[in-house]
Each structure stands twice: as C-alpha cells, then as structure tokens.
C-alpha cells in the first residue's frame, strides 16, 4: 500500500461522515445517541435525517434496548457514545438483546483508549475489545484512520449482524486511500517484509508505520499488517505472514489481556508457535495527560514498537 498522509483528522469524524453516507445509501439506517451527538460527530446525520435520529438522553442501557427494538422492526441502528459506556457499562444488555438475540445493531464506540487524554481513567476504556470479542455473533472493528473509519461504518451498515466499531478522539494521520473499500475480516497489508510480522490496529497502525524506516536502518525488514477486524480474525493472513517472518509484534491501544495480541497469540499457539512481543497496556488503568504523553507513558509509542520488534527478532 502506498502510504501518503492526506491530512490529520479524528477517526470519530470518519464515523460521523460514514454514518451520513450510510444513511444516504439506505433509508433503514437510524442513529441513536446518549447525549453525545457532537462528540460522536453525529450532527450531520441528525440534521439530514431528523426522523431517523433518536436522542435517548444519558441512558445507555435504554439506548441499546431501543436499538434492538428498532432492529426487530427492520431498521439498522447505530448507537453512539463513548467506548466505556458502549461496552463495560452495558455489557449485559449488549450480551442479551444484541449478541445473543443476534440483532442488527451497530455499537459505535468513540474516545477509546488512552488517547482520550485528559479525562482520565474513568473514560479511557482499555478492556472493551476483550469484552466484545468474547461475545458470539459479535463482529469487532478497530479501523486505523479517518478514511478507514468512514469506510468501516459504511461496511458495518451492509453487514447483517451485531458490530462493535471502535474509534477515537484525537486528530491523527489520515493515510489510507479514500476510495479503498473496507472488507470486514480481511487484514490489510501495509508493507511486506521478511524479518518480523507487526500486527497493529487502530491508532497504533500509524505508530507502527513510523517504526518501519527506523527498523530498516537497523537492518530489520518488517512486515506490517493492519488487523482492522479483530473478530472474525483473518487467521490465514496471520499464519501466512508468520510462516515467512518467524516472529511477531502486536500493537494496540488496549489492555494486553483480551486484546489483539491475545487473539494473535492464540492463533500462533494453536497453529505455529513463534516468538511474540506485545505492545499493549500491562494490566493498569490509565490517567490524565495529553494523548502523546499517555502513549509514551504506557509504552504504546513508535520506539516501543521498534524495541518490541528487536526483541522478537532476537528470540527467533
């Protein structure tokens, strides 16, 4: 893939613009929010389709129930609130009336991870991917930039079934091609390589891209694959890459327990055990700070990916 930074945009705006586009394409798409229309960038959709937009107030459990009801009635509901309130706060509701009942509800989770920044640990969910990937029927998407989040939102509308769509708050490099369709369950090759497979998702895909030239200078020819679909995982792409490189780094803005690294480690353990290093949060809660400070503090930054790759290669 040709990597070219087009601009710097927040992934949540990709969601908002994707929702508007999905709403234009399909009159069955409806939006719901729990008092976070602006934060989720759902305002344009609400303005374009006021009769298809539901403001439910600060009542996330009720929102998910209403979404399930709208899905029963033949609609494609997108719920929008912060990631923590889209997951941990309403896990049982999602489990019973969305996942188990297999309803066509899209749970759209913004401000995920430490890059939420100054609001601190109460809002910085680092456990949501783990919770969501454990639910049967649930598809879990973690796109990496504005363009990809927009495309993922449109793709989610076209998939018949529950989806958890995770994105974030800060403006980050927007580098994937604007016209690239989002194929759920198909890993995205960013750069081919031979020495180590880096599997990244979300904001850390860009951090991994920044690591590539540094690794090259050290003589490590890294392969970078964007795992934007945590579930269903593209097992073939993972195994194919590992067969070539023989070692792995995973990178994610999530707890090590339950995250992307966990999923990849399982695939390796069951199929082709190889050294794996995980760039992830190590069993601690976040705290207040700027996104950049926090990424550095929790060892989720470019140098951390470089070091992890060196360790992985050394363990081969």
């Amino acid at each position: 893939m040709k990597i070219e930074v087009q601009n710097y945009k927040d992934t949540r705006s990709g969601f908002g613009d994707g929702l508007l586009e999905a709403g234009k394409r399909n009159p069955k798409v409806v939006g719901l929010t729990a008092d976070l229309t602006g934060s989720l960038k759902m305002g344009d959709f609400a303005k374009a389709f006021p009769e298809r937009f539901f403001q439910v107030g600060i009542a996330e459990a009720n929102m998910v129930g209403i979404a399930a009801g709208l899905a029963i009635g033949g609609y494609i509901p997108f719920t929008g609130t912060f990631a923590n309130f889209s997951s941990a706060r309403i896990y049982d509701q999602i489990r019973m009336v969305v996942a188990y009942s297999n309803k066509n509800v899209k749970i759209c989770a913004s401000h995920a991870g430490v890059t939420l920044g100054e609001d601190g640990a109460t809002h910085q969910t680092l456990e949501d991917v783990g919770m969501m990937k454990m639910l049967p029927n649930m598809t879990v998407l973690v796109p990496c930039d504005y363009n990809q989040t927009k495309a993922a939102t449109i793709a989610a509308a076209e998939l018949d079934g529950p989806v958890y769509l995770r994105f974030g708050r800060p403006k980050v490099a927007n580098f994937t091609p604007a016209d690239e369709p989002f194929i759920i369950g198909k890993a995205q090759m960013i750069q081919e390589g031979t020495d180590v497979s880096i599997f990244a998702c979300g904001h850390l895909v860009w951090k991994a891209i920044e690591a590539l030239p540094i690794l090259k200078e050290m003589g490590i020819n890294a392969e970078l694959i964007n795992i934007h679909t945590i579930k269903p995982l593209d097992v073939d792409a993972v195994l194919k890459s590992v067969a070539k490189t023989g070692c792995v780094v995973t990178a994610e803005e999530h707890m090590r327990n339950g995250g992307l690294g966990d999923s990849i480690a399982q695939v390796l353990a069951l199929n082709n055990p190889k050294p794996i290093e995980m760039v992830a949060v190590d069993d601690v809660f976040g705290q207040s700070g700027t996104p950049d400070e926090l990424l550095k503090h929790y060892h989720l930054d470019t140098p951390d990916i470089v070091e992890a790759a060196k360790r992985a290669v050394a363990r081969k």
Partner: protein
Amino acid sequence: MTINELKDVASQVRRDIIRMVHGCQSGHPGGSLGATDIVTALYFDQMQIDPKNFKMDGAGEDMFFLSNGHISPMLYSILARRGYFPVAELATFRRLGTRLQGHPTPVEGLPGIRVASGSLGQGLSVAAGVAQAKKLNGDNHLVFCLMGDGEQEEGQIWEAAMYAPAKNVDNLVAIIDYNKKQIDGSTDDVMNLGDLKAKYESFGWKVYECNGNDMQQIVDTLNITRKNAHKGQAQIVLAHTEMGMGVDFMMGTHKWHGTPPNDEQAANALSQLKETLGDY
C-alpha cells in the same frame, strides 16, 4: 372471544404450565400462573396477529414482549395454543436441544419470540424501540410489554419509563404483573416499590389499574388502552395478580416462584384445573 372462552383457554394454559415444569422438574410456575389471564386475553382477544406466518418484524401486526422472561412456560403454552408452533413441542421445555429454552430466545427459531429476555429490566426498552420502528413504518399497530413488579427494582426500567412519555411513544402499552412477590419474599420486604401508580404518573404515563386475574376486567382495561392509543401518551396497566393463581397451595406465597411440583403436588394442581383444549 367470549369471557368464558378466554377463561377456558387460561385453564388449559395453567395445566400446560404445571405439566411443563413438572415434566422437567425445573422452571417458574408461580408467576406463570399469575400472569396467565393477562397474556391469554392479549393473544386470544386483543392483539391482531398472524401466528401461522410469524414475521420477525411484526409488520402489520400487534406485538408482545415478555420482559420477565422466567415466566416462559406461560408464554410458550399461549404461543402454542394460539398456533405459533405445535402444542406437542411443549413437552420439550428446558430439555437439551429444545427451542423452548428456560428463558425465551429467538436464537433457536421459535416462532413468536423476537428477543431474548430473562436478564431483568430490559424488555420495556426493546418494546419502546419496536414501537418507534412502527411509527417510522407508518404501522398503527400496538406494542405490548409485560413486566414483573419485582423487576421494577431494575434501573433500566426507569430509563425506559422516562423515555416513552418524553418521546410520545403512544403506541406502547406496558403491563405490570403486580403480584407483590419476588424470589426472596414480598416486594414490601425486599424493596418497597412505593406507589407505582404515582411514580408512573409523575413520569408522564397514563396509568390504569385492574384485577389481573379477572378476565372481564382485563379485557375491559385493554380495550380502553387500545382506544386511547395514538393520543400522545404512553400507557401502563398495573394488573393486580396473585402468584400461583388457580392452584390453591401455590397461592399466597412466594415459595413457588422457581420451584416445580413433585408428582403428588402436580396431580393435586391438575385436579384443580379443567382440561379444556386437550393436554399436549
């Protein structure tokens, strides 16, 4: 249906409930027996439905949601007796591989079930969402939702209770199975519900009360709610019921909430309930 015909259906449903929970030695007879008359009236008199052609989206039909899913034997019996699926299937209740899971679920493809329930407090939200979908679709049929009274202790109920009047969900009729009992004892002892009527009224609902085991009162009250639908206000019926209704030794106590009768108790219970439509 006439009131007497509805009573005959209810009697058979109560027999089915006893035989189902006795058959697998598991399930919730008390609440099932208490809510039988309300749901019988809905399915056999009130709702416009098409049981032979079950559609998930319920387009062009009235729809019912059971929030307190543990009283599933009552719902399964009524669905079967109304023609959603073969009556003989009631014998599979709670057994491995059954579509009649302990708590209702659409996953096994059982006609008549549209969402899982059993984790309490969620049905009213779902029913409100379905009612919103009907409005978007220009479908003027109604959505009914039965809740338990103990279930009113769940916070999500009050999120939905605030939502429906605020958003003019006037095609929704909620019903509370108000038997004043829950697993651990009386609702007064476990968590005093206070004045439920005043609470719902203050939230903006039109509130009705009736004896939920008096078929005439139930039908009369539901008739009024249908007449008053689409008039800008969400409606709720506090249906005063007796847990275990129809079986003398199961009434006046919470002890049969989730306990099946043994052989002797089942025989005793069945001797009190007329077989009107033929046992499964």
